[in-house]
């Protein structure tokens, strides 16, 4: 029953083709039906295959379906083949389930948009590319999906391309991603040269068999991780993600929160043998993740744009996933990916619902007291915030705790401390968001207030479903303290994850760590409550006390400006210089010179071309006679 899994990506692909060709002529209702239906069918097939996978014994992982040989050149062979194993199953389920809900939500959110069919075409194309990415059985095909989601991301960030900032944000995302992709590509070529194949199973065997030197493994691992930092918005390539919020909110939810940005985590988990073999690479991943988690958290503190806060929060949460992968707890990292997909897309969609209610207002300073106007959005938003803050019994708590416990158990105390710090920041800025938006006094502009309304059911129902999952999703991966075998998720993924050295904590330590996480989360919430509801003057005092720090955070550490000065402008200047001196004089000169030289010789030789048949015949015959003579003598 599992052998139909290769149909999962093909259904959205078919739908994309139909929409791309006929989309403009089809009625909106049909477009919505087809786009959502395609993703839903994918989801059903994923679920079916997943149930089938449970019956397969772990020795048979991964199940590979080779459709055809795509490239065959010398020793190099790339197949168009899909594989299905626990990691793929989790990713495919997350992508299709969350994707389906967001597609449904988009029906309401995009209802008035002129480019309705273009939007759904791209969303379907994105789903297809993402599924190719997670289901590919070799690096080359994975790279196809990787570039495919990058392309869709670019197209959807710049969806409202009439807006200058949106078009620029799209370009920025694309270019920054390319830098990461270069790393990925080089890593892939190294693998190709030294392993001779890009199939994951061959790579795993080669690395496990020790046919690659330790330094080479580290090098490849770091290069691949460069690709991951680009796609998953980690230091130093995170700058595109906040700008990516220019796109429609469902896009931010699907691509820039739930699925695409986690592709880097997926890739690291897929190539886990490298990070397990090379501890250096693992540590790099963990430290980059931890630093990003805190760094992005601090930037989220001062943002006033509701979606930007969520964007920085996404960067920070992906940092946690990388901590998990870096310390060898791949299952925990993927677990966080999976819970994060639910609550972060919930938060984004709820934020979209708020925007929808307020005629597109994004600035939290112009919100406040929305609780009574948005009876459905508020509780779902609150659930999402609680889940991400790491309050016990919701999904975010279990996954974050799993990661931090693993980091502590592996002796990465520095990473652990950063993680705890990040957790405080997370709960603080999330509840700052809640309090500024839904509580306190109303700061809504009177013009906007007239049109304020709750979103239609097609938007609120997906919110409710996501909220439900945000609560319960964590219960498949309960902490070890509750019993030896309660962490079903860990056991499910275990056969394909390569464990480093195992480290066990005493039960007491584990309880202590959980207690610390709980305290930390609640502290954050309390500080937010104190700052923004109890004594709203405190933040202002702080800003006046530490103007430098505030400006630094508010301007996102001036990283965008620094990149501008360090990379963008020199590139522009250098390009202009090269254009002026080299291009015009040398390249154009050479091209024009070649043309005029050819013209000159053509003129000279054209004297031979008399246009008289007899001359040609004579020369022709002369040639024949000479050839014949050469043959004879």
């Amino acid at each position, binding site marked *: 029953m599992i052998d139909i899994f290769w149909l999962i990506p093909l259904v959205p692909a078919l739908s994309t083709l139909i929409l791309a060709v006929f989309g403009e002529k089809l009625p909106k209702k049909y477009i919505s039906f087809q786009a959502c239906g395609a993703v839903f069918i994918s989801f059903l097939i994923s679920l079916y295959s997943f149930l089938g996978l449970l019956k397969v014994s772990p020795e048979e992982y991964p199940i590979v379906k080779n459709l055809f040989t795509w490239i065959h050149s010398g020793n190099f062979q790339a197949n168009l083949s899909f594989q299905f194993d626990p990691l793929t199953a989790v990713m495919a389920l997350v992508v299709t389930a969350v994707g389906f809900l967001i597609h449904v939500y988009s029906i309401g959110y995009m209802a008035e948009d002129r480019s309705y069919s273009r939007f759904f075409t791209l969303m379907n194309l994105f789903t297809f590319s993402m599924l190719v990415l997670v289901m590919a059985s070799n690096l080359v095909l994975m790279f196809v999906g990787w570039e495919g989601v990058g392309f869709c991301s670019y197209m959807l960030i710049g969806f409202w391309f009439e807006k200058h900032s949106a078009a620029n944000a799209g370009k920025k995302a694309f270019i920054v991603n390319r830098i990461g992709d270069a790393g990925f590509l080089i890593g892939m070529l190294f693998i190709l040269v030294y392993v001779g194949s890009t199939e994951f199973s061959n790579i795993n065997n080669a690395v496990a068999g020790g046919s690659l030197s330790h330094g080479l493994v580290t090098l490849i691992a770091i290069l691949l991780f460069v690709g991951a930092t680009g796609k998953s918005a980690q230091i130093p390539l995170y700058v595109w993600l906040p700008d990516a919020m220019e796109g429609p909110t469902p896009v931010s939810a699907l691509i820039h929160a739930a699925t695409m940005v986690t592709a880097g985590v997926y890739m690291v988990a897929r190539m886990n043998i490298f990070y397990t073999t090379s501890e250096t690479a693992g540590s790099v991943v963990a430290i980059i993740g931890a630093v990003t988690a805190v760094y992005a958290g601090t930037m989220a503190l001062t943002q006033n744009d509701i979606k930007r806060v969520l964007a920085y929060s996404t960067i920070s949460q992906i940092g946690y996933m990388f901590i998990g992968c870096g310390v060898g707890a791949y299952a925990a990292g993927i677990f966080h990916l999976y819970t994060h997909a639910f609550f972060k897309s919930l938060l984004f969609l709820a934020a979209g619902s708020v925007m929808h209610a307020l005629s597109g207002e994004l600035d939290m300073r112009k919100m406040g007291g929305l609780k009574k106007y948005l009876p459905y959005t508020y509780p779902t938003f609150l659930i999402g915030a609680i889940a991400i803050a790491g309050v016990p019994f919701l999904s975010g708590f279990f996954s974050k705790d799993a990661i931090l416990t693993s980091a502590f158990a592996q002796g990465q105390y520095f990473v652990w401390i950063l993680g705890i710090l990040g957790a405080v920041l997370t709960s603080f800025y999330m509840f700052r968001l809640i309090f500024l938006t839904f509580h306190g006094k109303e700061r809504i502009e009177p013009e906007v207030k007239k049109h304020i309304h709750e979103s239609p059911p097609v938007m609120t129902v997906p919110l409710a479903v996501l909220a439900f999952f945000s609560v319960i999703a964590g219960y498949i991966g309960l902490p070890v303290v509750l019993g030896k075998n309660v962490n079903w998720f860990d056991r499910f993924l275990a056969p394909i994850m390569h464990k480093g050295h195992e480290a066990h904590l005493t039960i007491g330590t584990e309880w202590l760590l959980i207690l610390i996480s709980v305290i930390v989360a609640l502290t954050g919430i309390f500080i937010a409550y104190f700052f923004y509801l109890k004594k709203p003057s405190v933040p202002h005092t702080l800003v006046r006390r530490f103007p430098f720090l505030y400006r630094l955070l508010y301007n996102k550490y001036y990283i965008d400006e620094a990149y501008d000065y360090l990379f963008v402008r020199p590139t522009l200047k250098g390009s202009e210089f090269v254009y002026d001196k080299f291009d015009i004089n040398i390249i154009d000169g050479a091209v024009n010179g070649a043309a005029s030289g050819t013209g000159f010789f053509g003129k000279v*030789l054209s*004297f*031979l*071309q008399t*246009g*008289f*048949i*007899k001359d040609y*015949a004579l020369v022709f*015959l002369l040639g024949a006679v000479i050839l014949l003579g050469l043959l004879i003598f």
Partner: protein
Amino acid sequence: MIPIYYFLILSAVLFVMGTVGFLIKKDLITQFMCVEVMLNAANVAFIAFARSASSLNGQIIVFFIITVAAAEAAVGLAIILLVYRQKKSIKTEDSSLMKG
């Protein structure tokens, strides 16, 4: 029996006569006739070889050559007629649009 090489030498002579004729004649029609002579020279050679090898294939080839020559003559003469209509002349020298 007549020795084969008599025929072959006749074929060579005919061929060269056709070639030289093509080069020195100045109107399209006679040049075209010279081409036909060259084809015939080939035919003579084929027939001679067919007999010397006791194989009918040579004769079959000649049969096909004659068929093709008929088709070629029809099209070629049509083209000559067109040229004449355009240039009001069948001198090869008058058709020199290809001059570089």
